[in-house]
């Protein structure tokens, strides 16, 4: 498993038991099956991205690992501690930063960090010193004595992440740390997370963005309906879904049959078709070259093209390929825009 890690693991010594382990986790909420036999292993000092749409069970898994929920079936351990039987000892080895920043809006950034420091049982003097350090490290000095209510989304996430690093536990859980952030704030979060991993922290990160997983993760586990449906490095997953995506929309219904035959020749059997938009879509191993060949062939067959694009695969594509259906929101949360493009 280590050989396939794309990043150098500076702090990874001899092979040990996985820092995070789950076997056959099942969790039900009433009649809803949130986790349906989830298996997972995260090696010490690596980052594993749990990739899936809203409602896939990512947050439920994180809540079990962080002792906030008890599993109905199966077992899990973090840093060698059982999440149920050794919950109290486990707590000293983990940090959690969530999608809703767990900070007090009416306290200043400094007061928030000092409070968390005291609750981690640092002495008063240490809590103050540690808060000052983290404010510096997370570029919050100027806003340190303003109440957190006035902070931007990016600042809140940074404060939240800072609070989870007070005594820097060996295992960190980041539940959608960049959902809802602008591209610049997202990039800043990525830099911090990458640094923490370089320094040897084991991280389990949940995300809805394939790009985020691609950027940060040693390994990616794709979750659907409470189960891991695919796992591997970013490259392995991309190979499975066939590299970059080619999309072509045909101008006239009359050309569809001819167009389909040509498209299938170029993008392989995985091509999908959306009749309302007369749009074909499929993976391509050699994006640009394949695209120009496709255009030439369509042109030669005088098929009118309405729209044409080559883009990086998204979570939707992963899902479409792995499950044959779109990555739908299965939760009842209000819909948000899920996808964003590389800036």
């Amino acid at each position, binding site marked *: 498993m280590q050989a396939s890690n794309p990043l150098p693991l500076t702090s990874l010594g001899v092979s040990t038991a996985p820092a995070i382990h789950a076997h056959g986790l099942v969790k039900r*909420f009433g009649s809803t099956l949130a986790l349906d036999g989830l298996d997972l292993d995260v090696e010490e000092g690596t980052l594993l991205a749990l990739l899936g749409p809203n409602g896939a069970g990512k947050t439920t898994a994180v*809540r079990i690992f*962080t*002792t*906030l*929920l008890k599993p109905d079936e199966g077992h899990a351990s973090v840093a060698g501690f059982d999440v149920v039987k050794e919950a*109290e000892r486990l*707590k*000293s080895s*983990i*940090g*959690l930063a*969530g*999608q*809703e*920043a*767990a*900070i*007090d809006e*009416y*306290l200043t950034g400094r*007061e928030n960090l000092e*409070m*968390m420091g*005291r*609750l*981690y*049982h*640092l*002495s008063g003097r*240490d809590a103050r010193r*540690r808060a000052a*350090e983290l404010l510096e*490290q*997370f*570029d919050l000095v100027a806003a340190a004595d303003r*109440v957190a209510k006035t902070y931007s989304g990016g600042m809140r996430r*940074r404060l939240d992440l800072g*609070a*989870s*690093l*007070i*005594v*820097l536990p060996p295992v960190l859980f980041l539940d959608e740390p960049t959902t809802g952030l602008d591209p610049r704030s997202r990039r*800043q979060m990525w*830099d*911090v997370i990458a*640094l*923490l991993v370089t*320094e*040897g*922290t084991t991280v389990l990160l949940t995300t809805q963005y394939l790009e985020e997983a691609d950027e940060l993760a040693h390994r990616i586990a794709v979750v659907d309906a409470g189960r891991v449906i695919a796992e591997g490095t970013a490259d392995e997953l991309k190979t499975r879904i066939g590299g970059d995506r080619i999309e072509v929309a045909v101008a006239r219904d009359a050309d569809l049959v001819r167009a389909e035959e040509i498209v299938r020749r170029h993008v392989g059997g995985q091509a999908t078709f959306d009749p309302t938009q007369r749009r074909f879509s499929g993976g391509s191993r050699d994006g640009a070259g394949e695209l120009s060949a496709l255009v030439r062939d369509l042109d030669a067959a005088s098929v009118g093209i309405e729209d044409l694009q080559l883009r990086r695969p998204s979570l939707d594509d992963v899902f479409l390929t792995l499950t044959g259906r779109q990555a739908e929101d299965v939760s009842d949360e209000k819909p948000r825009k899920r996808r964003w493009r590389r800036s």
Partner: protein
Amino acid sequence: MGTAPTGVRAAAARYRPVQRRSRFAWALLDAMVLARRSLLQTVRIPSLIVFVAIQPIMFVLLFRYVFGGAIRVPGGQYVNYLMPGIFVQTVAFGGITTGIGLAEDMQKGIVDRFRTLPMSSSAVLTGRTIADLGRNLFTVIIMLIVGFAVGFRIQGSVLSFLSGMLLLMGFSFAFSWIAALIGISVGSVEAAQSGGFIWLFPLTFASSVFVPVSTMPVWLQGFAEHNPVSVVANAMRGLFNVDPSLTAADTRSAVIQSVAWIAAILLVFVPLSIARYRRTTRG
């Protein structure tokens, strides 16, 4: 971030949690940290300042001047009868801050963060109820000052005055724990607000707070007489020596009943709330 933070791990490694303290000491220290948080919130939320400082002053003035002339109490001045009652009513309602605050914490992510910390879990509740105690003490002091300004006079020793205040604070603490259980049980801030208020109206109005129980219909007197709000108000009236209709024996009995009520409420609601908090998780 301009420059990315460097050496986060190395920096964190310099800090070690303090180890040598008993579980009880930690529970108390954690509670104080969270009580401080709750009090800081009070100062920064304008509606809370109104609730804690302005509304009680308004009550004192309204009852003193609007109803004061119409309501007769046997053998004494209404303002002297009224003030201890208003104190009890105010601290009873003051506990709602605990309920609302806890409901808000449960709704937001911050309780999840607390639960993953190696801190005492009861501190989340104790911190709130201790903060309420501080807030209520502050409110009562303001009301005492306003009360003295509008003619409230007490008699008796300093010791019995302090005993009365101690009883009031005990009552305040006990009622905060009832509000705590409501706050963590209802699941939303709005429900904590209405659920926190609704049961207090019959309890504080069908009591001796505003009028003597003897003026009520007989079927209500039994309830009003033994209701903890009446009992504590009467104990304070006796200790402050402001109600000539209370004999020394009446006062002694009211004090004993008050202590019993406070102890009983705490014995039931503290363990119940803590157990409920440990069980409840956001879905």
